Structure formats: C-alpha cells, structure tokens
C-alpha cells in the first residue's frame, strides 16, 4: 500500500481536524476502558462506598477458576462454529446470487434483512421458535423422534445459540462476499470456462483465492462479533445455561458484574477480553492488511 503525504499550511490544523474523533474516542473508549483496568485491581462493594486495592487477585483467581477456564474453551468452540457456519453459508449464498441472478438486487436486499435485526430481537425470535413448550421447531422435531429441550440438554443449547448467532451474521458475510465477487474481473472466469474448467473448479481455483482479502477481513469481523455482540443473543435465549453450557466469556462478564455485582472480578474479565481484541486488531493490521490487496 502506498502512503500519501499531505502538507498542511500550519501545524495546528491537522490536530484540530482529528480533535472531534480523538475526543469521542477518549470519552467513550479510553476513559471507560481505563476505569475497567483500574477497578480490575480493586475490590469494591456495589455502591462504591469502600474500595480496597487487591493487586492481581482477581486475575489470579480467574485463571485458577475451573469455570472460567471452561468458559474460554467453550467460547473458542462457539466462535469457531459460528464463524465457520456464518461465513460458509454467506459464501455459498453469495456465489449463488453472483451466478444465477447477477442482476437482481431483490435477493440481495432480502438477504440483508437479518443484519438489521438487533441481537436481542434475533435471540427472542429464535427463543420463540425453539421454545420447548410452545415453539414450532420442537413440535416438528418430535415427529423425527428428537426431544428438544435446550433448558437441560447442553448440546442442544449450544446448537441453539450457534444457529441464532450465525443466522444474524450470514447477511453481513453475504454482502461482503457479493461485493468481493463482483470486483473479480469476469474475464478470468470466462477464460477458464473456455479452457473447460467446471463451475466448481472455477470457483475453487479462481474466485476463492481472489476473495482472500474479503475472507480475512470477514474472519476478523466475525470473531469479534462472536466474542462481543452475541451477548444479546445469549441473554435472550439460554441465559448461559444449562449449567453454564452456553456461558461464553462476554456473557460471564455480564453475569458476574451486573447480576452478581462483583465489579472487580468482572472488570478483570473485560480487561482480558479487551486484550484479546487488541491482539486481534494488531494481527489484522500487521499481517492481513499488509499481505492483501484491495
């Protein structure tokens, strides 16, 4: 990538121009984040009437807590499942739209709808569909001999939240994949077609490799989505249950901090999550952005 240099007439102007963004970042990100870091070293009562410095106690406890360690593993599984499903289906749908109805914006518009649904609402929709007492899907599954009860069955609960979380993200991936595919020159695939390459081979050897910048970008975005935005889905569907089977890291932050009012331990967990995002972002900028060309 080329870097562009712009010469400003005075030294103050560039700072003035970035000031609004900087102020917003300071107030809405840096300041709260630093508060979280601060309170992760403290033990405080909920009302903040007494606070004591406890150093790394919360962090040490977290990594000795088998439930927290289990939650890390579970989050990894959840992230992998949601990312693979959401990206895989997004790619398949994009390929289908790209091939069959290249001109039709209609399907594209329809496909994007789920993205406009907020995570909580998406969660509630799926909660209705999967409700073991009144839901449609358990009713249908009964005919196939499947007793659906995600209130007790840990695997079913995981499948349930994976479906709900992936469903919402498919649209986003689809949109980017469609855009990515449209920027691939048709001449390449046409030439391959003349040489006798099958549609699958054309996709696999030409389109897919050329999509790699999009794929990398979406991978990072999806992992971020799974780690943070799925909170609303979990809250509206399983509430982390049964027996913590769907209690992923971000939901645990909420449970310990907001339900349990244990702000110190909860802050320590959010600091760890924050570090994770920072690492992910660095990876994105350092390696991915450098290697790919848009």
């Amino acid at each position, binding site marked *: 990538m080329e870097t562009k240099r712009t010469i400003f007439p005075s030294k103050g102007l560039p700072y003035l121009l970035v000031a609004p963004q900087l102020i917003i970042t300071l107030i809405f990100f840096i300041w709260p984040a630093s508060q979280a870091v601060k309170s992760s070293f403290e033990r405080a009562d909920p009302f903040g009437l007494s606070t004591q410095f406890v150093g790394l106690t919360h962090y040490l406890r977290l990594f000795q807590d088998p439930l927290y360690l289990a939650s890390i593993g579970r989050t990894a599984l959840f992230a992998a499942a949601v990312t693979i499903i959401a990206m895989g289906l997004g790619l398949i749908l994009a390929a289908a739209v790209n091939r069959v109805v290249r001109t039709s914006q209609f399907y594209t518009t329809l496909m994007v709808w789920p993205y406009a649904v907020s995570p909580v609402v998406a969660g509630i929709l799926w909660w209705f569909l999967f409700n073991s007492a009144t839901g449609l899907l358990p009713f249908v599954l009964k005919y196939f001999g499947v007793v659906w009860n995600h209130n007790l069955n840990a695997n079913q609960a995981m499948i349930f939240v994976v479906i709900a979380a992936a469903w919402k993200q498919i649209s986003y991936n689809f949109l980017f994949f469609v855009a990515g595919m449209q920027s691939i020159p048709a001449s390449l695939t046409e030439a391959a077609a003349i040489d006798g390459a099958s549609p699958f081979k054309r996709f696999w050897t030409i389109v897919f490799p050329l999509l790699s910048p999009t794929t990398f970008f979406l991978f990072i975005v999806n992992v971020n989505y799974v780690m943070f935005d799925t909170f609303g889905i979990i809250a509206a569907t399983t509430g982390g249950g049964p027996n913590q089977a769907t209690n992923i890291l971000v939901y645990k932050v909420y449970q310990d901090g907001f*339900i349990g009012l244990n702000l110190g331990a909860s802050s320590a967990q959010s600091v760890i999550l924050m570090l994770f995002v920072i690492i992910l972002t660095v990876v994105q900028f350092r390696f991915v952005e450098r290697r790919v060309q848009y």
Partner: protein
Amino acid sequence: MVRLSIATGLTALAVALTSTTAFAQTEISWWHSMGGELGERVEQIAADFNASQSDYVVVPSYRGEYEESLVNTIAAFRAGEQPDIVQVYEVGTGTMMAAKGAVYPVYQLMADHGANFDPSAYLPVVTGYYTDTEGNMLSMPFNSSTPILYYNKTVFEKAGLDPNTPPKTWEDIEAFSKKILESGAASCGFTMGYAATWLGTENVSALHNVPYGTLENGFGGLGSELTFNHPIAVRLWEKLKEWQDNGVFSYGGPAGGPDTSPKFYAQDCAIMMNSSASRAGVLTNAKDFEVGFGMLPYFADVEGAPQNSIIGGATLWVLSGHTDEEYTGVAQFLNYLSSAEVQATFHQATGYLPVTTAAYELSQEQGYYEANPGADIAIRQINLNPPTENSKGVRFGNMPQIRTVLDEELQAVLNGSKSAQEALDSAVERGNAILREFEAANQ
C-alpha cells in the same frame, strides 16, 4: 414475561417522562420493576396519592426487571442521580443492608420526618425478613408473595381424581401425577417456577424447618455459611431427576422458569407451583379449565413439617443524598402506602400478600376470601406456625449469584451429569466462595 415487560416498561417510561409537574410541588422519584398490569397498579397508587394532597408529586418509573433495576440504581447512585425510592427484590436485601452509606433506613426516616409509623402493624413474617439484627425495619414492605400450588381441576376430574382435593405432600404429588399420566389427561404431572431456588431449596428448607445456612440463615452476620445440602433437599432433587425422566415433573427453566406458566396454561402440566402473585395471570390465562389452589407440598414423614413458607417479592428502599423536604414527602407517601385500604386493594388485585394485619382484616371484612376461594392460601401458609430461625427467611449478600449457581447445579442433576448430593455439595462450595467474597468487600 421479560419480553412483555419491555414493552410495558417503555410505555411506563414514556408516561413518566411526559408527565408534567405542577409548580412548587416537590417531586419524589420512585423506581420500580412492576411491568404489565402490576405496573398499572403502581401508577394508580401514585396517582391516588398525588390527588390526595398538593405538596408532593410521586413519579413512578419502570426500570426493568428486579436485577436490572438494582443495577440501574447502583449506577445512578455512583453518578449521584439516585431516586428517592427504589423497589428491590428480596434477594437483593443482603446487598442493600450492607450498603450502609447509600440507604436511609425506613425506621430512621420515619422517626426523623414525623410520620407515625408502627412496624408492628406488619405481618411478623414480613417484618422479620426486612429488619436488622437490632429489630429495626430498614425497608418498607410493599409487594410480598409466597409460592403456592395451582392445579387444573378439569384435568384432575378427567384423571378420576377429586377436583376439590389438592395434593398435600410430595407423596401425593407423585401419586396424583402418575394417575394423571396413566389416564392421559395431561402429558406431565407438575412443573414449578424457581425450581432450584426459592421453591427448590429456600422454601423446602423453611417448610421442613432445617437451616439453609448457618447464623440463622445469614441473619446473624456476614460470616454465615450455606448448609442447604441437607438430606431433605438431596431427597427432593433426587426425586426431581427421577420425575423429570418419567414425566411426573417438567422443568420450566432457570430463575423464575420462563416455561413454567406456559406449560400449565397449555394444560401440558396438571399442577404448577409458583408465586402467589401469579394468581391474576393464572386466572386470566386459564381459559379452558378451572383452577384450584393448594399449599406447597412437604415430605409427610418429616417431623414438624409443614413449618411455614417464606416470602419473596420486594420492598421499597429509601436512598440517601436527598433534601429534607423530599424525605418528608417520602415519609408521607410510605405512610399512605401502608394504609389498610391501599394495601388491601393491591393485595386483592394482584395476589401479593396483604402485608399488614389491618389489610388482611379489611379484606376479610369485605368478604374477599369468601368470594375468591383460594385467595387466602398464601397468607395461611406463611402463618402456619410462628417462624423459627430456619423459616423466617434467608439473608445473604450476592444472593442473586448464589441463586444462579443453584440453577446451574439443578440443571446438572436433571440432565444426568451429577447426582443430587454432588450438585448440592458443589452449590454449597461455590456459594460459600461467593459469600466470602461479599464478606471481604463489605468489611
């Protein structure tokens, strides 16, 4: 339920935001968690009080479910924007009591601001739950309930059971349920809300008069330890697992059990144990069948059972940091709130307990219980016997977290990954760690 109350909450909030205040009146903010019809009752109480005098305006506003409202209040307190009055659920009591600088104790408020307030007007079970170790009442009882048993008379009849005999013991529950299942009158015997917590451990301990924790169930101080892994709880949880597998019991989910009431309304389950405050909802939703009422079951062979059930629900806490003028208004309002008429109306409309003796007597005089059979089950159940150390309630800091632990452990029992004893032992161990954390934070 959560979903319904979001909509009603927004409406309530909109109403609260748009209601204009007449000049020179002191405004008193009241945050509550009463959604739906209950929210309308709360609005009505405030409107009636506002109409009764011209110095103060009580402005109620819905702040989400109990957990959310408590968190909102804490955040508001930290920002110096706390309301005058906030409704906090019973499991938040330990947290509120420990927050000495944030709370203006009700007994002190009443003494300072001239309202003639008599704690002995309240039912002993209610005051017992909300007084400190010196016998001072720290918050104002408002909506208290206790779990009771609802049953489907129509299904009972179909199954060849006497529709006028509710099950009394767990043995009855099992026998009745099996008969219902065999006859095909319903596909499940019973379901219950708060299956691991309020009903499945707290009230089970109280009804059988066994301690839930040391130091008088936590009333005696922050150093208490949990003891709910006693043989009676183990016995019940083992039974629940067995019953879940053979259809006698159907689990309605964690916390209040979001699927509990639907299972009963849809006539899947013939019996439901749930809060007495569900009464209004049950009667509205039981369209195609007749509802009967009964007391919570107990194990017949346990001596002393049934002792008495314990309450749940919420009280009103007054927060510090406001002006004397506001507090005078708060005192007047709380006095108004505890009058027999207001309490009796609220009790009769909702199924919450009449929290004062006067309100109970007034309801009796009005002939309410004769006209509404079963409406007095709750109050008779909490008054079965004078409360003991084991049955006056539970008080632990971070209680919401302990309840979450219990929910998780019961789920582990029901899905077969742990035995009842293992799960309850593990819940005690995890719960004690939570209590020690609370103790350390509140020294």
